């Protein structure tokens, strides 16, 4: 098997082109692939579509990508109270935004991961979220059709990765990471620790290696507030 481990953050993201659709893990300051985001920002990738729960904390997390005008469209549930760089560009029309209810964001990614073409949900019926979506009645309930969210890449953060790409996560730093790992065509992981194959008990693996394509070792980077 082609080795998945690369030696630098820059090489981990070197082939991500302008215009890519990229999922970014993380929630509430935990589990963000901040080292990969910094490398991607430094590379100067432009016009990406970002799929993430929120839009950064000032310059931290995805904030730097908005600050440097690298995102043209974002799909998220909650930009966040400190996503000032996103809000500035959104106000000027430099970035567009699709707001998705958080659990539906998860399920649309899982739909992509599972090779399904859509699902019906009561979430969002009668709200702005339902605009333009097919509505029908199932089992007596109004529901709307939601479609999968695909991505070219997922950038995620794991606690441990073995050399094959089996992953574990620490506490609530798990959040969106295992979902995105499965949904994207190509998943790049920054891991706090890389361990030999067999060092993670099979029953403790949270993300099986089949979903992981590239791994880089990086000590977690966190942004306050």
């Amino acid at each position, binding site marked *: 098997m082609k080795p998945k481990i690369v030696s630098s953050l820059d090489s981990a993201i070197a082939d991500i082109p302008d215009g890519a659709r990229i999922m970014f893990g993380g929630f509430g300051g*935990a589990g963000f692939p901040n080292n990969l985001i910094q490398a991607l920002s430094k590379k100067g990738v432009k016009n990406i579509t970002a799929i993430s729960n929120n839009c950064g904390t000032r310059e931290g997390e995805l904030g730097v990508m908005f600050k440097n005008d690298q995102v043209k469209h974002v799909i998220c*549930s909650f930009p966040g109270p400190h996503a000032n760089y996103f809000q500035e560009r959104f106000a000027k029309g430099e970035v567009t935004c699709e707001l998705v209810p958080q*659990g539906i964001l998860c399920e649309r990614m899982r739909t992509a991961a599972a090779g399904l073409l859509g699902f019906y949900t009561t979430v969002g019926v009668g709200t702005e979220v339902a605009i333009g979506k097919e509505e029908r009645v199932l089992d007596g309930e109004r529901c709307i059709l939601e479609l999968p969210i695909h991505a070219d890449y997922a950038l995620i953060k794991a606690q441990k990765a073995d050399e094959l790409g089996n992953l574990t996560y620490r506490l609530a730093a798990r959040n969106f990471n295992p979902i995105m790992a499965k949904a994207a065509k190509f998943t790049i992981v920054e891991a706090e620790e890389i361990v030999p194959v067999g060092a993670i008990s099979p029953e403790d693996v949270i993300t099986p290696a089949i979903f992981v394509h590239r791994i880089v070792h990086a000590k977690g980077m966190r942004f306050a507030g």
Partner: protein
Amino acid sequence: MTEKARLTREQIAQRAAQELYEGAYVNLGWGIPNLIADYLPKGLTVYFHSENGILGMGRRAKPGEEDFDLVDAMKVPVTLIPGASIFHQADAHLMTRGGHLDIAVLGGFQVSEKGDLANWKIPGSKGSGGIGGAMDIASGSKKLIVCMEHNTKEGAPKIVKTCNYPLTGLECVDTIVTDLAVIDVTPEGLALREIAPGWTPEEVQTRTEAKLIVRNRVPEMKLV
């Protein structure tokens, strides 16, 4: 005319805490609901759920014991109680939508007489707004309680015939706890269950756009 005293935000939380029961799985939203954990009746064990993948959230972490991989939905470092579990965000919302949570408590801008909820965007506000987990939570909890002030700062009613703020969910609210009243959404309409100490049902009605159903004597809220 000076208004009578209303409940404080803390007292709204305190009254809402009385709606929780032993062993319940509970999600608390932003704002007043987030204060409820501080007012749990003594000896009551409930399992707090957080949308980022925690069941069995304990108190907030004290200075020095914070673990920033263990935060609640408001980014605050928390602790776990015995029996807690961790899972990913999709399972966290499978719990909210799928009818697995016993009680969810959300903040609100408006609730309609049918129990429609608006709580994510103020019309005309600048910026993108943000939905977060509110629509999922509103759609599937066994019981949805909304905690909010009864009126806006300008005095406009927040319990209305029809919401004119962007909606979070249709016919999803079961109970409203405000600084003036506890109100149940019933098939017949909004039933006034309790009123704030010193207030009359008529006074609460004049501060409410939707019609309140008053059955017999309405007791005052008990705040210990």
